[in-house]
């Protein structure tokens, strides 16, 4: 008897409807290959929860004779097969959605196949799911594909895993075998970023531990799969802390009403809350929360609402209404994990758009390194092809309001669209890296890599005229390490070769464009941003820039690199130790610093972060000036900047 029938015996339809109105929704995906019995598991869930209609069952019985693999028994796997061609092949090759419900919850299953080439489909299915069922064949234990499925779930931010050890009937319902696989899985799962992992021994074919506890496995006491799906705690999966509302459209039904419609992506909002609008950074208060069911005093994600605001502020689609206390990152540049979804591989010269929230922006993508979905370790990649995953640098022409995906799934996700074909070619999950800028950070206003559209002289023409590849050499090191000396010597050497170099000397610039800045960490960052900006303009015009700057912080150097582009940036670390630098100091700056007269002095009273992987380290305390310059010149030759 079905839950419904039982229920209708006890209570009338009115109380059934009342109760049914309080159901929650759980979306989950099933990962496993055909052989793991995935379709059978889904068929079993649908069958045992009486979701299948008689005529569907009759059709399956008919088909079981034609295609079935169960030798006359009803092949439940056939219930979930979809398109005709696939039905003939006996495999599913896309994401298919199935539905069933019990007295407690409604379930949506994203049914995705487990073959290696279908990372794309799994990512698609996982993107909307809260939970994943990983199927393991009890005979074979954890296979490479088990790891792959688990890693993709982790990558897509799934918070709940249910590892079902299937085909227990074929291993004699052995508790030892179950525990063995559980241990095997737990060992590698330590690498996953998933907090809730649950193990269940099942037989989908025989119905063990699916809906009812299995009589064959009395040693397993944690209840059947369905019970777990009905009770797993999902209430705190969503980010309820950080209010974000990407504006979908502006509603102005008449002159007196101007409201901003959108779905609350995360957090909650109350009437009277102070909110900020990005990109304008303007602040105001929420005047009302309008819905067709009446105005609300409070609303939360994922509710679709219309907000009216206390002040007239120019807001349009793509803008984000957000928390004031706890705003998102705002900027052009971020790093993300990308899953490539298209047959056509990534083209570095191709035109791409990002759709993030309700904003679509042109973008550039740079691959940092690939990610092996079997191990989650980084690997080198030759391009980016269908089903490959890579960590990338993203730079959009329009700034975006975003959060790391880990912290906020709704504002950390985006898709990449090919401008030529209009296809969705990749999906991205924004990473929590320290390069991200807040809304007031001046680095965020730096334009992307498309700023040279107006010049009628191309970079190629300039390169031909000057006979050089432009780029920036950043000489970093302590005061007294020889930055200026080397910079001007290098400039001379390049100039003699017929090149056009320009030195940007930290102290010179401090007398010019940075005269308003001090030496605090923020001011040093701003100083370097300005120098980086000039170097960028020089490079864009074919000129080689040599920056002689202290640049004590790795994160700030990293930002300069990002601003200039990795292929146009060389970091040279002058490694003379502090004692040598002090001994070279004729102006007595170190004495002042040690006496506390200069408050912030890298190497003495504030950190100098030694570059971890500079393009070149020059021990200026061991080499002559000429030898030092020789080393930099050979680096330039190695990198193809000069012949």
């Amino acid at each position, binding site marked *: 008897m079905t839950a419904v029938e039982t229920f209708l015996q006890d209570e009338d339809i009115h109380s059934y409807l009342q109760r049914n109105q309080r159901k929650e929704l759980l979306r989950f995906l099933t990962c496993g290959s055909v052989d793991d019995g995935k379709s059978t598991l889904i068929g079993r869930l649908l069958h045992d929860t009486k979701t299948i209609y008689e005529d569907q069952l009759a059709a399956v019985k008919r088909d079981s004779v034609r295609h079935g693999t169960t030798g006359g028994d009803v092949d439940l796997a056939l219930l979930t097969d979809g398109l*005709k061609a696939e039905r003939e092949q006996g495999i599913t090759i896309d994401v298919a959605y199935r539905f069933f*419900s019990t007295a407690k919850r409604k379930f949506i299953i994203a049914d995705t196949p487990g073959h290696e080439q279908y990372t794309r489909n799994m990512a698609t299915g996982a993107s909307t799911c809260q939970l994943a069922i990983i199927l393991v064949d009890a005979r074979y234990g954890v296979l490479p594909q088990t790891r792959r499925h688990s890693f993709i779930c982790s990558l897509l931010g799934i918070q709940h895993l249910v590892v079902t050890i299937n085909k227990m009937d074929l291993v004699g319902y052995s508790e030892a075998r179950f525990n063995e696989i559980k241990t095997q899985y737990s060992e590698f799962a330590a690498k996953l970023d998933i907090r809730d992992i649950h193990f269940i021994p099942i037989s989908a074919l025989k119905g063990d531990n699916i809906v009812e506890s299995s009589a064959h496995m009395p040693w397993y006491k944690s209840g059947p799969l369905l019970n777990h799906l009905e009770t797993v705690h999902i209430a705190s999966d969503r980010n309820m802390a950080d209010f974000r509302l990407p504006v979908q459209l502006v509603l102005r*039904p008449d002159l007196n009403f101007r409201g901003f419609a959108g*779905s609350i992506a995360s957090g909650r909002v109350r009437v009277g809350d102070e909110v900020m609008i990005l990109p304008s950074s303007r602040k105001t208060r929420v005047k009302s929360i309008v819905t067709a069911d009446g105005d609300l005093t409070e609303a939360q994600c994922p509710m679709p609402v219309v907000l009216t605001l206390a002040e007239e502020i120019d807001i349009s689609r793509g803008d984000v209404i957000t928390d004031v206390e706890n705003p998102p990152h705002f900027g052009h540049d971020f790093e993300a994990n990308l899953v490539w979804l298209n047959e056509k591989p990534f083209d570095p010269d191709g035109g791409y758009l990002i759709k993030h929230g309700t904003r679509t922006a042109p973008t550039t993508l740079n691959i940092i390194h690939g990610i092996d979905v079997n191990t989650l370790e980084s690997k080198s990649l030759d391009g980016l092809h269908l089903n490959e995953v890579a960590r990338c640098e993203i730079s959009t022409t329009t700034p975006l309001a975003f959060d790391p995906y880990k912290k906020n799934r709704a504002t950390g996700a985006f898709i990449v669209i090919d401008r030529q074909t209009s296809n969705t070619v990749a999906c991205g999950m924004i990473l929590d890296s320290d390069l991200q800028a807040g809304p007031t950070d001046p680095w965020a206003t730096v334009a992307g890599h498309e700023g040279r559209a107006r010049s009628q002289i191309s970079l190629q023409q300039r390169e031909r005229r000057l006979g050089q590849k432009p780029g920036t050499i950043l000489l970093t090191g302590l005061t007294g390490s020889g930055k200026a000396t080397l910079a001007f010597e290098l400039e001379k050497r390049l100039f003699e070769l017929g090149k056009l170099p320009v030195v940007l000397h930290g102290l010179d610039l401090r007398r010019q464009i940075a005269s308003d800045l001090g030496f605090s960490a923020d001011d040093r960052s701003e100083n370097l941003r300005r120098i980086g900006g000039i170097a960028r303009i020089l490079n864009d015009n074919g000129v080689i820039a040599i920056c002689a700057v202290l640049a004590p912080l790795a994160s700030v150097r990293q930002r300069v690199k990002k601003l200039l582009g990795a292929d146009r940036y060389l970091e040279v670390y002058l490694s003379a130790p502090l004692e040598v630098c002090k001994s070279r100091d004729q102006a007595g700056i170190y004495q002042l610093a040690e006496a506390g007269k200069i408050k912030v002095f890298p190497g003495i009273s504030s950190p100098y972060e030694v570059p971890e992987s500079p393009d070149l380290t020059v021990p200026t305390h061991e080499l002559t000036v000429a030898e030092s310059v020789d080393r930099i010149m050979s680096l330039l030759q190695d990198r193809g900047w000069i012949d």
Partner: protein
Amino acid sequence: MPQTMTHLKELEAESIHIMREVASEFERPVMLFSSGKDSSVMLHLALKAFHPGKPPFPFLHIDTTWDFKEVYAFRDRVVAKYGLNLLVHTNMDAIRAGVNPFDSGSVKYTHNMNLQGLLQALKKYKFDAAFGGARREEEKSRAKERIFSFRDRHYQWDPKNQRPEMWNIYNARINPGESIRVFPLSNWTELDIWQYIFQENIELCPLYFAAPRPVVRRDPQLIYVNDARYPLAAGETPEVRQVRFRTLGCYPLTGAIESQADTLPKIIEEMLLFRQSERAGRAIDHDEQGSMEQKKREGYF
């Protein structure tokens, strides 16, 4: 405020989000309106999505001229009540060629009146996005359907060439001449639809409720003799029975069921206990296995 919403509120939120995206990103959207229960729910959601404004797109009825008279009356009442912009299109070429539900066969009839009628209207008004009330649960090939379903310039659907759909971020870019079908009710089941109609007190076409109606038996179906156009056998008189409809199509092709369910709770109770797939009452799916898939390839919803 509770941390989680009910499943119906979640489904409602998803549908409204989709409708607002389409209204913002497309130039000429349209919403199909058939007067059926799914259509009525879709309309209700559209009214909610753009409140306090009106849905910023027209509604389209593909009129085969063979809908139930109750359907026409319901349609006109709803349109007047909400001040909707309704467009009605009929495939007049087919009418002139004598296509009708009795002689043409259900395949040819449906192809001409529904499919060709729809394509003519989409072309005539240059719609680039059309909302339909189809649900993934309804039929096997629908289970894989995207929410944004892309159609080429011949309005054809290629199951191998659909875009991956991630999160709730919908890629709305199309090339000139291409269009999409949008299914905001994709994740609703029949029970969800009924439960929501009950919860929101949505007005339905009276044909869903049991009432005494004149019917004739055309095995395996009971056909409601809706007007004088229905051909009766010599000496045949329709018999009045207490019947209702689970789906609404062209009246000569849509089977009634005998039922006492004359209120929403009774209908839902009956639906819960009635283990027959929803479309079993409609003739168009029975013709061949995978017929829906074939129709979709040709441009059907």
